[in-house]
Every structure is written in C-alpha cells, then in structure tokens.
C-alpha cells in the first residue's frame, strides 16, 4: 500500500485547473446523509406535533406513527457522523469536552435533549398500553410471554395508575413535551444548517438563510417520508388482510385513509413552497450582489452542477411533485410517486449544498469533482461510499420494526385509543 492511498479524500476527488494541494472533498456522502437524516427526524416530529399540540384530529393515526418513527430515525442521525470521523473512537469527546465556540459542540446537548423529549413523550402516550400489557400478560405461560412481561414491566417504570385523573396528566404531559419538542427539533436541524452557513471560507455555504432553508426542507422531507412509509405499511396490511380473510375484513383496515393523506399533503405543500422560495431568494441574492466568489459559483451552478441543481433538484425533486400533488383527482399511486420525488429532491438539495460547496477551489480558479466509491475495497471506501450510505438509509426501518414490536404505532380500532 502506498502512502498516497491513505490520504483522506484522494480516493474520490478529481481536481481540475488550479486547486491548492491540500484541497480534497473532505466532506463526502456521509455528510450529505447527516443533514438528510436529521431533517427526517425533525420533520417526522413536527408532523406528529401537528396532532399533539395543534389538535389536528385527522392527523391522529399518522401522528402516532410519526412519533415512533422519529425515535427510530434519531440514532441514525448520529450514525453518519460516526462513520465520517477519522477517529471514531473519540466520538464522545464533543460531549465530554465541548468547545463552545464550535457549532458542532452543541450537537451533544441538543441531540440528547431532543432524544429525552421524544422518549418521554412516547412514554406518556403509550404508558396506559404498557400497563394494560402487563395485566394481560401476567400469569400467561411461556418464555416469550415472560420476556414480554418483563420488558413491559420495565417500560411502565413502576407507574401502574391508569385512573382518569392519571391519564389526563399523561395527556397533558405529552402535549407539553410535543410543544417543547417543536422548537428543539427545529433547533436540532437549524443548527445543522448553521454548521454550513457559518463557514466563512466557503462561498457557497456562507449564508444566514442556510439554517432556515434547512429547517423548511427538513419538515418537507420528514412529512414526505412519514406519509410514504405510512401508506406503504397500511396498504401492505390491507393487502395481506384481503388475501387471508377476504374482502369484508379488508374494509375494516381500509388501508391509508384519504383524509389523513390529504391533510398531510397540505402541510407538505406549504413547507415545500417556503423551502423553494428561500432557496431561490438565496440564489437571486448571490447573483444580484455578485461578490468576488460569484464568478466561480455561477460556473459551478449554471455549468458543472446544472443537471444536479436545476434538473434533478428543482425540476424533478420540487416542481414535478408539486404539480403532481396539486392537480385534481389525485390517486394514492400518484401521491406515492410525488412523495418519492420530494424525498429525492431534498436529498439532491443536501448533495448540492455539501458536495457542491466543495466543487470549487478556495483559490476560485479550479474545480473538484466527487466520484462516490461504489465497490468498497477498504474500510474508508465502505464508510464513505455507496454502501455506507445505504447502511444509514436501511437502519431506521430496522429500528422501527423493532421498536414497533413493543410500541404499536400502527394499530387500529380497539388499540387506537392510545
């Protein structure tokens, strides 16, 4: 192995024209995944809060699911950072010895606070269910039942009071936590935007609008992912029910309800408009003020990255789904296509910010191109390559499947009272 191979960034960076020797694409695919996953966490939580705080009754079913899904997404927001660190064993240092002038040092505090809020809100929402399960499983035979009983007993944390009064307190606590959670969720993601927006050395990133743009697009992607997962799971359940128990039983399950999807779509469109407006404002402002960096930025945005920014992000990721969702006579299939495109659009936005910000040299006289490693041949090319990114994408679904075994966020009918 030559020593060249171990220089971080050499593997996937191609330089063009005048680039300083030490410049490489240091922040690669995992740093694209980081704001993407954080955004999904924040967005999922905001969607669940629309029901818990603002009493959007028609969002109830999807709100319960979003809340639990937000918990499943949460550890995955930190995973890309861990995969990206050159010294992953020192990952706890920002928590233990934070250097508070750095935006990253806030991560530990905000992330922990947010995790506590989400976990305690879920506890208050599902406490009655835990207690019911304990009573139900008591006395049942079998190792699996005993295991479940003990898990639920631990989950109740010794609080077995399910009187009217106690449940009222639970409800109130969940509402307060959801209310506090909204600003914290926004902060969690707004500060991810601040990490980029405050880098004065980077002409593309440096903008006070960056945190706000990040929050808006976060909510868009979070709502889109929750809607999509919800539709897929509910349709799958209905499909299975129809196969096993016939048409009549399927009616009870119904699949994804149109009114829930309609309301969620309205919020999605609102946030999408806000996100696009801010991004366009940022673009126009840069062109109009035409600072020193504008020449190179223009050549990147209108030249090298034109397909990525204007075709894939704005047209395919924003405009097309916008039209698809607004045109009358929307079907569930069309909604699913639009949601997939929205998720793709937000991903491209993160890509264009993170990779696009490193597409030009600090000398303003050269370019760098990022070639994502596909087939890994070392730990680094796995971590910071396609398969590292796929690992990050798959993990929340696996976690959700596990959490959902104990906290049934998708139950209906009798169970739906929780």
């Amino acid at each position, binding site marked *: 192995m030559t020593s060249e191979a171990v*220089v*971080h*960034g050499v593997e996937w960076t191609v330089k063009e024209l005048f680039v300083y020797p030490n410049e490489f694409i240091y922040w690669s695919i995992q740093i694209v995944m980081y704001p993407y996953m954080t955004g999904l966490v924040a967005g999922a939580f905001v969607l669940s809060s629309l029901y818990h705080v603002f009493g959007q009754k028609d969002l109830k079913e999807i709100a319960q699911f979003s809340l639990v899904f937000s918990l499943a997404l949460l550890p995955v927001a930190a995973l890309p950072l861990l995969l990206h660190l050159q010294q992953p064993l020192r*990952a706890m*240092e*920002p928590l233990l010895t934070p250097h508070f002038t750095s935006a990253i040092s806030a991560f530990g505090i905000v992330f922990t606070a947010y995790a506590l809020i989400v976990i305690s809100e879920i506890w208050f929402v599902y406490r009655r269910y835990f207690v019911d399960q304990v009573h139900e499983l008591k006395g049942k035979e079998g190792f699996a039942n005993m295991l479940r009983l003990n898990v639920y007993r631990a989950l109740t944390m010794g609080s077995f009071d399910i009187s009217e009064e106690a449940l009222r307190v639970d409800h109130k606590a969940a509402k307060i936590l959801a209310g506090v959670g909204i600003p914290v969720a926004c902060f969690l993601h707004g500060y991810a935007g601040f990490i980029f927006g405050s880098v004065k*050395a980077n002409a593309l990133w440096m903008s006070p609008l960056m945190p706000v743009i990040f929050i808006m697009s976060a909510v868009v992607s979070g709502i889109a992912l929750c809607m999509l997962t919800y539709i897929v799971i509910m349709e799958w359940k209905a499909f299975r029910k129809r196969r096993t128990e016939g048409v009549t039983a399927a009616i009870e399950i119904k699949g994804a309800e149109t009114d829930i999807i309609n309301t969620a779509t309205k919020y999605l469109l609102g946030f999408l408009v806000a996100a696009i407006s801010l991004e366009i404002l940022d673009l126009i402002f840069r062109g109009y003020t035409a600072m020193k960096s504008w020449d190179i930025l223009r050549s990147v945005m209108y030249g090298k990255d034109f397909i990525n920014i204007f075709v894939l992000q704005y047209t395919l990721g924003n405009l097309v789904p916008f039209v698809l969702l607004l045109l009358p006579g929307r079907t569930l299939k069309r909604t699913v296509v639009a949601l997939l495109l929205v998720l793709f659009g937000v991903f491209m936005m993160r890509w264009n910010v993170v990779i696009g910000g490193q597409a030009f*040299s600090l*000398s303003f006289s050269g370019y760098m191109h990022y070639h994502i490693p596909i087939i890994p041949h070392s730990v680094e090319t796995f971590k910071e390559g396609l398969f590292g990114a796929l690992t990050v994408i798959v993990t929340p679904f696996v976690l959700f499947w596990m959490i959902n075994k104990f906290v049934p966020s998708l139950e209906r009918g009798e169970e739906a009272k929780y």
Partner: protein
Amino acid sequence: MSCSRRDFLKQACGGTLASVLPVSAFTFLSPEEARAAVENANVRWAFLVDTRKCVGCGLCVKACKNENEIPYDAPVTRTWVERMGGRDGFIDNVINGEEIDPDNIAKAFFVPKLCNQCDNPPCVQVCPVGATYQTDDGVVLVDRDWCIGCGYCIMACPYGVRFFHPVHKVADKCNFCYHRITKGMNPACVESCAFDARRIANLRDPDDPVTKIITTERVAVLKDEYGTKPHVFYIGLDENVR
C-alpha cells in the same frame, strides 16, 4: 430570632458560595507558569515571504516534509510553492508555435504558502473539542491525541493549509516548526531556503531585523477580507495571488 433548619442550610450554602467565588478568581502560579506568562507576552511569531527572491526550487517543501514527518509521496503538505503568471498560464515563451518576446512575459514569480497563524483563527473557533488551539505567542497548534478528525477546521480555513495526516488520521498543518522556534532555532523551511525568501519574525521584538522589514516596508497579507488577521506577510504580492 428563630432560625429553621431550612433557612440555616440555605444561608450556610449561600454564604459559603459567596465567600468561595471571589477566592477562586485568584490562582496560584508555579514559578514556571509565571515566567512563561511574562515571557510569552514578549513573543508574537510572524513570517515574512519575499516573493521576489523565491526561485521555486521547492527545497523548503522537502525540508518541511522531512522535519515534520509528512510522508513524502502523499499529495498533502504543510507548505507549498505556487507558480504565478507566465503569460495566460503558459510556462514557455513559445505559444502555439509563435515565439513571444520575453518582455511580454511579465509577472512570472513564485509564491510560497504556509499556515498564516491567524490572530482570529477560524479553525480554532470551529473545533468542537478544542483540539486545535492558539498559543500565547500566536501559533495555532493541533493536539493529535484529542482531534476527532471531523474535518471542520479543514473546511473553515480560507487558505487551504489544513489536511488529514495520512498516518495519524488527524488534522495537520504548518506550525512554523513550533518545536524549533521555541528553542531559538529557525523553522525547517527558513533554514533550507538559500535565498532568504522565507524568514521568521518576532513581532514584539522591535530589534528583530525581519520585524523591521514588516513594520517599515510595504507588505501584504493573503485574503484579509475573511477577517482572520493573518500573520504571514508577503513582499511583492500580486492581485492574482489567492
């Protein structure tokens, strides 16, 4: 006067805190610490690059790599030399088969680059764990045992002087050969430069010959628009140098 247990505890805690806080503002310095505090106030390291003298031999880069154990073949370096000008980027006076009059090939010169040891260093500001820090004499250092390798400092440096060390896997950059200058020696690049194009200065010492040049002659710094207050001064800079 009656005093409940609660009140007593409250007042006792308050009183203790109030008396401890002002005392904790004073610290006892060991003699070494005291001397260091006073002596460091007399040192502010700076660097002078005379682009008119540099011939682009690259010995400084080689010396730096040897001295600081940066693998020679790795495409990262603590210092480098940029070749500027020529005519429209050409390096030969024969352009498209046509010979150009040497008088028309102006502004062909070399610019050595290294860490600017900024007074307002963005790399120090953004380090999430304080692994990169500024010493009292103005040099920015990296603690290899504490750096987590997030790369934020590399992103924050407008001069592109930082990189990940290929062996230690932590952020790395020029530190004016801090291990040498604090012992009265010259940095490796200064030592190896046969043309006096690179020189180190102590700005707090008015008798330092290099400081005299910096304070009395026309010098420029790189990218001052970022507000970093760089401390590598250049003679003979051109607007094309970035």
